[in-house]
């Protein structure tokens, strides 16, 4: 089969594919982050690219819209349709020659602002042990002089010394360590100081002696804390002897080319041959890219990274480790391991020190994983008696309620609307994203003011901007409590596209009725999740002493507006704290502290998971929450007061 060369612009990356492979697959091979929300099903139309040179064959496709001309019938039969406009859906286009493809700005995943954790602003400081205690750590030993009377071999005397000093007995010694050992501690060597590196595995008795080096190790060595997000992956590089953070970096998860939510990816892994290995490759590549960038900018060698902690949801953890994730999705759900044992970097393909120990944060259920547990550890909510509600406003909308005595968690699949997905002008919090609106209605029109991230010209609306938009649309009488437009049909800002009403907000940025509906559903899912978890224990909203908001919003979120639309409970603002990317923070704590790792396990053991799909509490709460702010207006006393 002939291979065609595909050149992608403006990246100038080139790959070769066969006529049986489409351009989305080519982009995947070239590792170019494209939008491909439906993972190549040909229906989301987010993967449009421009054919600059060469010809392509288009899959017969009934869903073509006006922007892409229908191939004419005769050609369709021959199966050789040439696109009549240069724009094609990458996932439906197959090469008939060498190609030059341009990826338009709109199709490309834009540069990302890294979401890090807030520096413990509103959170109580987390207790870290005074000196770092990573799970890959050196022990300095000074061995007694060689004596021919003792029959002991080198390893045995090393182990004796280790036991004397630390009372630890390794369960395994690596060949590499043994090979190093053979070369040192010769009978007449005076210098009998060595450093051994041990790997412990939280939750398991395993203790592995990985490395032996001569002398007293005083160099630096490094570790990585990783937040394996569904959309973005963020890594923090740390120096481990002192526990100093060197840099944080985040990029898009390359798995986005296989669908934007975990379910699409689960299905992709299940239904495609080698699907799982593609997905694993994509996430490992993503982390490797981060590693490369971090090590280059900090001028260290990647082989000096010896310990990694990854916090991800169960799907991400499974895919990262190459574990078949099929049972995550279907009842009766099961996961391969709630607490996956530590693995070596070379086993998963991370390009760092090959024996580096990689630990994934334990999870507790098929939809509740290490990212949340890491967040809980970092939040400190399990230290005191006060009742804390931890909310991660991501696609899965996980929440955890509890205190030092008990913890209960649920996940309420809010959908990715607040991450801008499914909305024509929805974006992540990239530069130029509108993050705040002020809309006032005048006698004939609307006055729309807004602010953007980094004060750049508006590119789209991010999550906090969407919340602000919804709150403002309701307040200014553009929509009713259900989110339907109630403006006069001839209002200058209303127009009808494809039979649907949409409102022009800023320049050509619009929002349609069904997009508003999506947002209302997303906010309703979050509130319904909160109510369901409380109801499960017969508690009222008022008993919550504090709320921690984790995830994408951070401090951009305007709390008042989030309450006004009924996404978050109407509780005094001082009860709220923003945590930002607290999963990353938890991963970092685990990287640096044995105590934190122990606590993670304790938390995972203590927490129980409430499956909201059982019974109809959630459905009822959800329906009640599909209203601005809520069908039960009494749940939002401050809004009633404001009105009066």
């Amino acid at each position, binding site marked *: 089969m002939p291979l065609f060369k595909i050149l992608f612009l403006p990246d100038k990356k080139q790959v070769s594919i066969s006529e049986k492979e489409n351009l989305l697959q080519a982009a995947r091979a070239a590792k170019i982050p494209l939008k491909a929300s439906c993972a190549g099903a040909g229906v989301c139309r987010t993967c449009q690219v421009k054919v600059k040179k060469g010809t392509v064959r288009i899959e017969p496709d009934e869903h073509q819209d006006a922007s892409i001309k229908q191939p004419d019938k005769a050609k369709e039969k021959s199966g050789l349709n040439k696109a009549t406009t240069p724009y094609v859906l990458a996932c439906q286009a197959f090469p008939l020659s060498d190609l030059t493809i341009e990826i338009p700005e709109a199709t490309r995943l834009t540069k990302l602002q890294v979401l890090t954790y807030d520096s413990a602003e509103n959170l109580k400081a987390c207790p870290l042990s005074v000196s770092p205690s990573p799970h890959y750590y050196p022990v300095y030993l000074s061995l007694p002089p060689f004596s021919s009377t003792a029959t002991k071999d080198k390893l045995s005397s090393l182990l004796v010394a280790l036991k004397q000093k630390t009372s630890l007995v390794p369960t395994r010694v690596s060949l590499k360590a043994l090979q190093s050992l053979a070369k040192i501690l010769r009978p007449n060597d005076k210098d009998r100081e060595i450093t051994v590196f041990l790997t412990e595995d939280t939750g398991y008795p395993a203790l592995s002696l990985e490395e032996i080096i001569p002398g007293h190790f005083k160099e630096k060595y490094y570790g990585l804390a990783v937040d394996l997000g569904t959309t973005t992956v963020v890594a923090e590089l740390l120096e481990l002897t002192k526990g100093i953070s060197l840099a944080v970096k985040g990029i898009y998860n390359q798995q986005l080319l296989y669908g934007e939510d975990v379910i699409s990816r689960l299905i992709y892994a299940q239904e495609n041959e080698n699907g799982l290995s593609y997905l694993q490759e994509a996430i490992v590549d993503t982390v490797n890219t981060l590693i490369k960038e971090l090590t280059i900018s900090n001028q260290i060698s990647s082989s000096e990274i010896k310990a990694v902690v990854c916090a991800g949801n169960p799907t991400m953890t499974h895919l990262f480790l190459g574990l078949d994730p099929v049972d995550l999705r279907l009842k009766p759900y099961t996961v391969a391991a709630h607490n996956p044992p530590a693995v070596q970097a070379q086993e998963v393909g991370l390009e760092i020190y090959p024996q580096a120990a990689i630990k994934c944060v334990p999870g507790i259920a098929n939809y509740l994983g290490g990212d949340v547990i890491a967040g809980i550890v970092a939040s400190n909510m399990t230290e005191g008696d006060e009742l804390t509600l931890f909310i991660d406003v991501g696609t899965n909308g996980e929440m955890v309620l509890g205190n030092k005595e008990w913890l209960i968690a649920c996940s309420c699949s809010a959908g990715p609307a607040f991450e801008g997905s499914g909305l024509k002008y929805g974006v992540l919090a990239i530069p130029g994203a509108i993050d705040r609106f002020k809309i006032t209605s005048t006698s004939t029109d609307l006055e729309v003011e807004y602010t953007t991230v980094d004060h750049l010209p508006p590119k789209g609306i991010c999550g906090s901007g969407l919340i602000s938009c919804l709150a403002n649309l309701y307040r200014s009488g553009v929509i*009713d*409590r*259900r989110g339907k437009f*109630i403006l006069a049909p001839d209002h200058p800002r209303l127009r009808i596209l494809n039979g649907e009403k949409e409102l022009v907000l800023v320049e050509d940025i619009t929002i349609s009725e069904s997009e508003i509906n999506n947002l209302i559903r997303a906010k309703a899912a979050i509130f319904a999740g909160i109510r369901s978890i409380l109801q499960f224990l017969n508690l009222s909203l008022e008993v919550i002493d504090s709320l921690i908001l984790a995830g994408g919003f951070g401090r951009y979120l305007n709390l008042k507006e989030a309450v006004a639309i009924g996404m978050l409970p109407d509780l005094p603002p001082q009860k709220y704290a923003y945590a930002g990317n607290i999963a990353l923070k938890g991963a970092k704590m685990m990287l640096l502290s044995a105590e934190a790792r122990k606590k993670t396990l304790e938390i995972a053991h203590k927490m129980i998971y409430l499956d909201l799909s059982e019974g109809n509490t959630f459905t*009822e709460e959800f*329906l*009640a929450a*599909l*209203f601005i702010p809520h*069908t*039960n*207006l009494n749940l939002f006393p401050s809004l009633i007061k404001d009105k009066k």
Partner: protein
Amino acid sequence: MPVKIIRENWSGKVNTTSLGVEPKAIKIGGEGALPFLYFEGEIPYRPVVACEVWDEKPNDWPDLLTAPFAGVLGDPVAWAKKCLAYGADLICLRLAGAHPETKNKSPQECALVAQRVYAAINTPLIVVGCGEDAKDAAVLPAVAKALTGKYCLLGWATAENYQTITTACDIYGHSLIASSPLDISLAKQLNILITEMGFNPGSVIIDPLVGALGYGLEYAYSIMERIRLSALTGDKMLAMPIICFVGQETWKTKEATSTSLECPTWGEQARRAILWELLTAVTLTQAGGTIMVMRHPETVSHFLAHLLQGR
């Protein structure tokens, strides 16, 4: 051994709504207790029965149901009179002919029919459209205007068309039926939307879109029970009386429409169908239903006998 009777102290009550013009006005609602529990609160009015009259001859009614109306089907005025003779408390005129897929009658034609029926009976009148949201929104304002001052009950206002219908009912002084599919939140949401337009909550009647016996009756039962409990515990947005379109639901079930020959083990159709409509109505009144819209005159008389027996 004297038993200590338990009486709930309810803080709220159901709104009282008045339909029609004195001396024939009918009052409904006002309950301060669970249905028929006279010992624990006021139950000032009994549930009422409305008989369905169509502006057009229905073509999918079984013989059993058309027989009692022989000669008057297609003549809404005569039909309405016949229903009153059969004992109905009020008439529910359905403008089936307005449906775009049937006769697509104009709002003016519809208004005229409603006016003629009212003039002939002088009894409180319910008028419902054809069930097609947009068409009802066009028809009902005309009907509302034609019946100015008669304090009728008009429906159906749904989440899609409530604005026009609410405005019309407000201007011309009618009550309205707020209809939403079998969910307590949806019902309440619609009531909030309607009353936030400035409409008097006391003139709203809830239609929870009930199901017939064997066809989701239990969902309606529980939702209505919960609506009543909410009203009694002070939720003003659920304190509206409830209307149940019992006949419409019953007469499409297999149990009501199959003949004795078709289903020999189910007993005689006449008995079966009447009981089906009757037990649906009885069950729904036990859950708090106030206006029962029924079709068969025999059901009506059994139902009234049951209500009067209890007083």
